[in-house]
């Protein structure tokens, strides 16, 4: 049973893949980029799910998949057009199929109402084209539903070896050439017949022509078999199941047809049979057979099947007497294993495969335990650190910078970087896995909001670290929800605005300067800045008279507690706002920005690191502490003129940057490293992006440089520390903390709300 469990697991893994394939294909059909192979792949996906489900008696799944498949079969054979409405039913069906698979896997209840509803929609599509042959539909289902069905089921094994004994059958078996062309073998079939009991076989070679006239692919021989058996007629018929159209087969029940008990005189029967056979053969065209001396060469064979029947039948002498054996060798094997046509070879197979151009060749992949990859990444991280340490010691030792040692270190540095990049690439995955979930999300949100949206995705093969992918799903989901719920207008409003009723959302991914950039753009209403501003004022997020740029207003939607909807909608009003999105993106070392045009739509841009294993950092110091700032957070650095700094209170200060005062965050003090305020005039200011999009100024003693650092978790052995996102190990082997800029600036805002940048606008 464990074997079955394993297969079951394989089945569900495979289902997941098939469902992905299905959805991808249906979406291609929807946007018109599908070709016939796409349709085939879609059909195959559902078919495959059905096939496996049948083996596990998942009847609901089989039933639904079957209906679904029947509709896809119509699409495949061009009997059903993929109108928008049809595709929508197909997409909903794929959702239901996915739900049924999940329910089957987890052995939980499925949503019967949804299944029934979508099934009806599918049936309706089937009904529309009912003029076409319902073909595969119903007769096929019987075989799949319930326990292992073997269709056509004629007899059970019990019937084959029934206790009620001696049936006697007379079987006439006259194959035609097609039987051999399909690699059936008369010998094998006869052997199987004899395995049911015991009997005699007579071969009729009367139609064998001269050697010169012999067509090696023609069937000249026929057989008469007298069988004594416990088996029924059905068991015999089943043996000939595959060849019922490639032979003439007569099965006569001698017990029924003969009143008197079966004669011992087998010879008489045989000659009767042969007479019949020859009668059938006499109208054959081999006219010049006068010279053949084996008109009725008959072979009588009494065979007990129990002792090694196979060997008996494998002997060439079985089919023909010795005289023929030498003369007409091929007769014994009319299936002609000898080469006849030379033009076809295995190469055709390859070409045929290419012709299908069904996409990429199968990729050669291996599955590796993630832990092994991470171990490798750790080790390479160590290598990088040691390489830096070594070159630093070499420099400290005063080795000439043009010496071979130093040049060697430079090569080593390049190599280690390359190794690091290659190792990182192992963890990289295409964003496809996240993008794939979006169409369903869009459908669901549309259904809930009554909007109509077409989703397009671009760059789904853009790769990024697995961890980033895993943590991208939630924010992206929320942004799409938001775009439909708040961005896209209702179809009526769109028509009023002179737009097509169906809204568009495009999600794209691309690599840009060492980061992955994901854009979510919609052609909805755009941000109504007046309204956003009014709401922000209402909620006390900004002072009534605040002087804000368009950009700053747009970014207000990322403030905690901001929601532009007066009444929270079912979907995006769950208290999860864009602030959470922004925070989770920032936790990944990413940034979100927004641009919007009233009436035209909005575009959100996420910029994320390609990996969470390394980070481009700015190395800064304050007191004895060396700290790392993620370079992505840094807007600019400046050495303040004393005139730009203004003391506020309690040692705190603000700095004037381009006509605006920005509060200075004394990082050492903020982190509790010291209680004495540092003098901003003595240090350096790093302007970082803060939550509001406005700058915040971080004060350090000095900037040491920029470097890629390996990210080490603090949480593994200690726990989360506010203001610190992780740690790294510097070239000198010491640990440096990586600052969590968001937390630093947020806690500043909470600690000192009077420093709200909007409250101190310079003239």
């Amino acid at each position: 049973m464990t074997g079955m469990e394993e297969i079951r697991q394989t089945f569900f893994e495979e289902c997941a893949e098939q469902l992905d394939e299905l959805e991808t294909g249906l979406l291609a059909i929807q946007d018109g980029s599908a070709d016939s192979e796409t349709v085939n792949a879609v059909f195959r996906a559902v078919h495959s799910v059905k096939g496996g489900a049948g083996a596990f008696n998942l009847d609901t799944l089989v039933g639904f998949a079957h209906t679904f498949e029947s509709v896809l079969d119509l699409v495949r054979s061009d009997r059903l057009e993929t109108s928008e409405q049809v595709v929508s039913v197909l997409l909903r069906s794929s959702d239901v199929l996915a739900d049924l698979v999940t329910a089957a896997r987890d052995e939980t209840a499925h949503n019967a109402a949804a299944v029934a509803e979508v099934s009806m929609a599918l049936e309706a599509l089937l009904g529309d084209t009912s003029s076409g042959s319902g073909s595969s539909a119903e007769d096929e289902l019987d075989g799949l539903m319930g326990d292992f069905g073997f269709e056509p089921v004629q007899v059970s094994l019990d019937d084959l070896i029934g206790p009620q004994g001696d049936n006697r059958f007379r079987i006439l078996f006259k194959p035609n050439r097609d039987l051999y062309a399909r690699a059936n073998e008369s010998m094998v079939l006869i052997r199987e017949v004899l395995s049911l009991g015991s009997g005699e076989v007579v071969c009729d070679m009367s139609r064998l022509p001269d050697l010169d006239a012999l067509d090696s692919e023609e069937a000249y021989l026929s057989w008469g078999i007298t069988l004594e058996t416990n088996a029924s007629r059905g068991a015999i018929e089943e043996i000939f199941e595959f060849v019922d159209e490639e032979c003439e087969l007569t099965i006569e029940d001698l017990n029924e047809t003969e009143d008197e008990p079966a004669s011992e005189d087998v010879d008489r029967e045989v000659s009767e049979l042969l007479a019949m056979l020859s009668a059938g053969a006499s109208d054959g065209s081999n006219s010049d057979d006068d010279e053949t001396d084996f008109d009725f060469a008959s072979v009588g064979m009494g065979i007990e099947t129990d002792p090694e029947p196979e060997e008996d039948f494998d002997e060439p002498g079985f089919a023909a007497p010795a005289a023929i054996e030498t003369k007409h060798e091929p007769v014994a094997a009319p299936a002609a294993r000898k080469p006849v046509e030379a033009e076809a070879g295995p190469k055709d197979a390859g070409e045929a495969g290419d012709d299908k151009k069904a996409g990429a060749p199968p990729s050669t992949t291996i599955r590796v335990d993630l832990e092994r990859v991470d171990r490798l990444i750790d080790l390479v991280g160590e290598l990088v650190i040691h390489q830096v340490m070594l070159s630093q010691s070499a420099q400290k030792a005063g080795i000439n910078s043009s010496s071979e040692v130093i040049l060697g270190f430079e090569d080593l540095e390049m190599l280690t970087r390359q190794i690091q990049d290659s190792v990182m690439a192992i963890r990289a995955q295409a964003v496809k896995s996240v993008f794939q979930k979006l169409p369903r999300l869009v459908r669901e949100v549309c259904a809930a909001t009554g909007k109509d949206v077409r989703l397009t995705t671009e760059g789904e093969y853009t790769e990024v670290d697995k961890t980033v992918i895993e943590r991208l799903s939630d924010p992206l989901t929320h942004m799409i929800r938001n775009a439909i719920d708040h961005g896209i207008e209702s179809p009526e409003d769109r028509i009023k605005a002179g737009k097509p009723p169906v809204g568009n959302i495009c999600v794209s991914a691309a690599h840009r300067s060492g980061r992955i950039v994901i854009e979510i753009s919609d052609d909805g209403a755009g941000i109504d800045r007046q309204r956003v501003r009014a709401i922000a004022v209402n909620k006390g997020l900004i002072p009534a008279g605040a002087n804000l740029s368009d950009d700053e207003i747009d970014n207000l939607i990322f403030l905690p507690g901001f929601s532009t909807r007066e009444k929270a909608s079912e979907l995006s009003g769950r208290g999860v706002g864009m602030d959470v999105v922004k925070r989770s993106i920032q936790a990944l070392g990413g940034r979100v920005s927004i641009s919007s045009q009233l009436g035209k739509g909005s575009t959100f841009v996420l910029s994320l690191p390609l990996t969470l294993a390394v980070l481009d950092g700015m190395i800064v110091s304050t007191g004895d502490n060396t700290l790392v700032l993620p370079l992505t957070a840094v807007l600019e650095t400046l050495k303040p003129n004393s005139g730009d700094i203004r003391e506020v209170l309690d040692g705190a200060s603000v700095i004037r940057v381009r006509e605006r005062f920005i509060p200075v965050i004394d990082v050492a003090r903020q982190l509790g490293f010291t209680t004495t305020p540092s003098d901003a005039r003595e240090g350096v200011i790093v302007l970082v992006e803060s939550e509001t999009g406005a700058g915040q100024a971080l004060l350090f003693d000095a900037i040491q440089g920029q470097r890629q650092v390996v990210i080490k978790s603090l949480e593994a052995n200690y726990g989360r520390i506010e203001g610190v996102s992780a740690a790294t190990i510097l070239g000198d082997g010491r640990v440096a903390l990586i600052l969590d800029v968001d937390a630093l600036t947020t806690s500043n805002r909470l600690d000192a709300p009077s420093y709200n940048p909007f409250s101190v606008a310079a003239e």
Partner: protein
Amino acid sequence: MKTILTIDDSRTMREMLRRTLQDAGFGVIQAEDGVDGVEKLAGSQPNVIITDVNMPRMDGLTFIETVRKDPANRGIPILVLTTESDAEKKARAKNAGATGWIVKPFDPEKLVAAINRVAA
């Protein structure tokens, strides 16, 4: 020992075939689609081939036609594995050169019986 070449794009089905056949004492060679099947066939001499019909790259019927074009392979019995049991589809399989068929989901005993009916 008789060797069976199984061709199916479904991992699940391949596994079920493999287990069933191995339990019945057959050797098993696996292929994932028609193209793979042709390649695997070139390096082996199976006694019977069992192939799925709906497969990417090269479907089962094309596979059978391809195999039958090679005179050396004309005598290899090919059973089609299918959920499609109606006459029309069987006829298409036969026209392509299939020896017989097995209806999915299969019963292990019936599978073995079907093989015995075609394997020399």
